[in-house]
């Protein structure tokens, strides 16, 4: 008997031809093509060498350079000799999976801003060091025998360095201050800009008058310290953005586009536009939103709507990116959101939720609002007070300005960014990526955690729920049989069992299951009814209502596999931890009641609601808000996106749909839920540190201001006070990242 060895889909060589990477390829000036690749599995110098040497041997390849810092490779090649597909194949052969990507606008903007701040920091650092060199000479000379001419010379040199340096390096602050003033608001940059300008102006006037003291060093040092804070903040933001771009590329979402001539081209999602026809085969995830043009199938929409029961899909029906095509091939007409579809509804809700979300005022801005008027009024009162005491307007003005210089919020400006950077680093280690710095403060205010069920509390991929009840050799056999099938449930079973060698003579009968002979006995994997296990199946369905069943018979042995979305491995411990920490926990799910109940009971969550539409999720969050609760929403589906935007703060797993991820404040990576708890703990700790730092800054001012008011502040004291307070605040911030926070 002739046997046809048919490779299962997962082992068949992937489509090599018709791949189109043109959206990722850039032309360089000298006729070469260039592309950036995010590469999985670069860990060490050896990987770097393997890639660079391996690719370098390829004819037509000009350069291949690994960036070990962000796990990327930049390749340049001669398009006449080489195709991008060939480069990817070569990397695959060396053992690295590479995914092309193009850095998005946002990442490029972050990178530019970081470079600009670094140059500003370099200029401020250069100026601060050299002026300090001159200033120390003057201070030492004032105490001994410096001649007035030498002192004036040093002061003029300082001015020559300080004025251009401050004009250049101070730009980020001046711009931000002007923006704030235009919006009729006050932020930290207003007193900073004012302090720097006044210090420079006064010093020039004093130098003209051959005075003993000038404050050039204070002005520039202030800028230097503040820029250190800004650079740290910016580099953390840029790193987060780079990791996010890599992860998006690693998802490597492609679509099979049906060309007008009937051929099929594999294109990255970015190159698909509304109106295109896309083919989705059985077992594939739908990667676009659209309407079915042809084909009949069932769709698993659990990641999108939370509903775990499959839906019937026929021409004219809507499908959404992220759903799983279970049975037959579908041709889908891609389209943008139109009125009346779920996608459009979600987008309207999303917009409304974003608009009505109460504007959170960052701690730093609240401090600035209190701080700026107090300081400016104090300085003015000092001026008037000393004038009334009759010391002359010149001396009174100098005292008023020294008050402004010494209170210039050096420590205050570092107090919050330093904590944000350290805490974001701690979260990074806990596999949480923040979208912005103020997320930490909002995390700290949370008292209620609201979870979506499907894909958030449960794993996005199906696994064997009753694996403990089945003999290991039956699991292994089922896995090998399942390798032959294209059905998504069978593929999930194969993956969960870890099987990798299909049975040689297995054949699939569509709609029934897989038949094979194993060790001389007939084996069958498929529908329970076809295996004569219908009655057992009913019993098992009663126990786990959200599971899908597959039966295995081998000789006279039988087994029934319950496949379903298992809870994330550490979901129970994480929920218990959150409860112990005093958070109220709630589930808001779009899934049917029985499935939600099982999950809620397994996790010990008392409050849960099922079958919710996106608008109803928002309504529940609004109700919680009205009761005075601050909510953390954790969700992944398209239907969660509005709720994510409406909550005080929100988290998404990295597998979440695009819309949900864009609405969330932070993204976590990995199979576990532990990052959620870690984010809350780090947030609380960070907020405590920020407050502590603000109090330290207040304490510093409480000591420094009276000294300045009495007119005792010399440039030497100002320099010591400023650098001292900045260092103390920064050291305190480092505690936010301690291991204990995790």
């Amino acid at each position, binding site marked *: 008997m002739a046997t046809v060895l048919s490779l299962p889909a997962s082992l068949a060589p992937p489509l090599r031809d018709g791949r189109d990477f043109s959206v990722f390829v850039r032309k360089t000036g000298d006729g070469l093509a260039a592309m950036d690749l995010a590469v999985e599995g670069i860990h060490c110098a050896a990987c770097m060498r393997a890639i660079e040497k391996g690719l370098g041997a390829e004819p037509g390849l000009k350069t291949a350079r690994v960036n070990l810092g962000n796990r990327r490779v930049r390749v340049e090649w001669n398009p006449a000799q080489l195709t991008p597909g060939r480069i990817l194949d070569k990397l695959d052969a060396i053992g690295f999976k590479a995914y092309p990507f193009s850095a998005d606008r946002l990442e490029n903007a972050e990178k530019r801003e970081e470079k600009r701040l670094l140059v500003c920091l370099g*200029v401020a650092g*250069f100026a601060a060091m050299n002026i300090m060199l001159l200033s120390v000479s003057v201070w030492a000379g004032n105490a001994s025998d410096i001649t007035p001419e030498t002192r004036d*010379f040093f002061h003029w040199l300082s001015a020559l*360095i300080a004025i251009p340096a401050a004009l250049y390096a101070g730009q980020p602050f001046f711009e931000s201050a002007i923006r704030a003033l235009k919006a009729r608001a006050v932020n930290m940059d207003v007193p900073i800009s004012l302090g720097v300008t006044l210090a420079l102006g006064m010093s020039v006037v004093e130098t003209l008058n051959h005075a003993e003291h000038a404050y050039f060093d204070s002005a520039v040092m202030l800028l230097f310290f503040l820029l250190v804070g800004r650079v740290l903040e910016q580099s953390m933001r840029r790193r987060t953005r780079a990791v996010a771009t890599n992860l998006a590329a690693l998802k490597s979402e492609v679509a099979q586009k049906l060309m007008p001539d009937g051929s099929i081209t594999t294109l990255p999602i970015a190159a698909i536009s509304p109106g295109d026809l896309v083919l989705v085969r059985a077992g594939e995830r739908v990667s676009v939103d659209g309407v079915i043009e042809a084909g009949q199938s069932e769709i698993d929409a659990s990641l999108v709507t939370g509903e775990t029961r499959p839906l019937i899909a026929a021409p004219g029906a809507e499908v959404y990116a992220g759903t799983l095509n279970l049975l037959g091939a579908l041709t889908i007409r891609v389209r943008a959101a139109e009125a009346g579809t779920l996608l459009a509804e979600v987008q309207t809700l999303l917009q409304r939720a974003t608009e009505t979300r109460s504007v959170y005022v960052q701690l730093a801005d609240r401090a600035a609002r209190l701080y700026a008027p107090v300081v400016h009024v104090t300085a003015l009162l000092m001026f008037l007070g000393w004038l009334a005491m009759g010391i002359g307007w010149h001396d009174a003005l100098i005292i008023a300005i020294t008050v402004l210089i010494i209170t210039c919020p050096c420590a205050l400006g570092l107090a919050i960014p330093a904590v944000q950077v350290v805490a974001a680093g701690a979260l990074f280690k806990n596999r949480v990526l923040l979208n912005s710095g103020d997320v930490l403060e909002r995390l700290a205010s949370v008292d209620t955690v609201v979870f979506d069920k499907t894909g958030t509390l449960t794993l996005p991929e199906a696994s064997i729920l009753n694996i403990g009840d089945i003999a290991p050799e039956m699991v292994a056999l089922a896995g090998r049989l399942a390798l032959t099938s294209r059905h998504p449930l069978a593929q999930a079973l194969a993956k969960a069992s870890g099987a990798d060698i299909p049975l040689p003579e297995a054949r699939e009968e569509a709609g029934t299951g897989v038949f094979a002979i194993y060790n001389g006995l007939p084996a069958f994997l498929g529908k329970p009814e076809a295996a004569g296990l219908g009655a057992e199946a009913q019993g098992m369905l009663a126990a786990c209502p959200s599971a899908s069943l597959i039966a295995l018979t081998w000789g006279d042995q039988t087994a029934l596999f319950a496949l379903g979305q298992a809870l994330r491995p550490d979901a129970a411990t994480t929920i218990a931890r959150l409860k112990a920490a005093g958070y109220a926990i709630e589930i808001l799910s779009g899934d049917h009641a029985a499935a939600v109940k099982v999950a809620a009971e397994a996790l010990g969550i008392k409050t849960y609601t099922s079958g919710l539409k996106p608008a109803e999720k928002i309504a529940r969050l609004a109700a919680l808000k009205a009761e005075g609760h601050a909510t953390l929403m954790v969700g992944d589906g398209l239907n969660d996106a509005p709720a994510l935007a409406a909550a005080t703060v929100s988290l998404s797993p990295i597998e979440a749909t695009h819309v949900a991820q864009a609405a969330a404040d932070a993204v976590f990576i990995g199979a576990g839920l532990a990052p959620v708890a870690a984010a809350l703990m780090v947030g609380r700790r960070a907020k405590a540190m920020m407050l502590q730092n603000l109090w330290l800054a207040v304490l510093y001012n409480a000591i420094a201001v009276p000294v300045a008011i009495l007119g005792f502040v010399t440039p030497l004291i100002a320099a010591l006070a400023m650098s001292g307070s900045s260092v103390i605040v920064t050291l305190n911030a480092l505690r936010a990242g301690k291991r204990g926070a995790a």
Partner: protein
Amino acid sequence: MNILVFLVPLALMLGLFGLFAFIWSMKAGQFDDLEGAAHRILNDDDV
């Protein structure tokens, strides 16, 4: 003390030279991959 008129600006020039070196290396992408460079030095391909 007149020597200061030459020496101090000279010192500043040296400092400026350092600053420009920093800005150049920044723009040339020398700081784009801080980890890789540390390992690259151990490669002996050219020898």
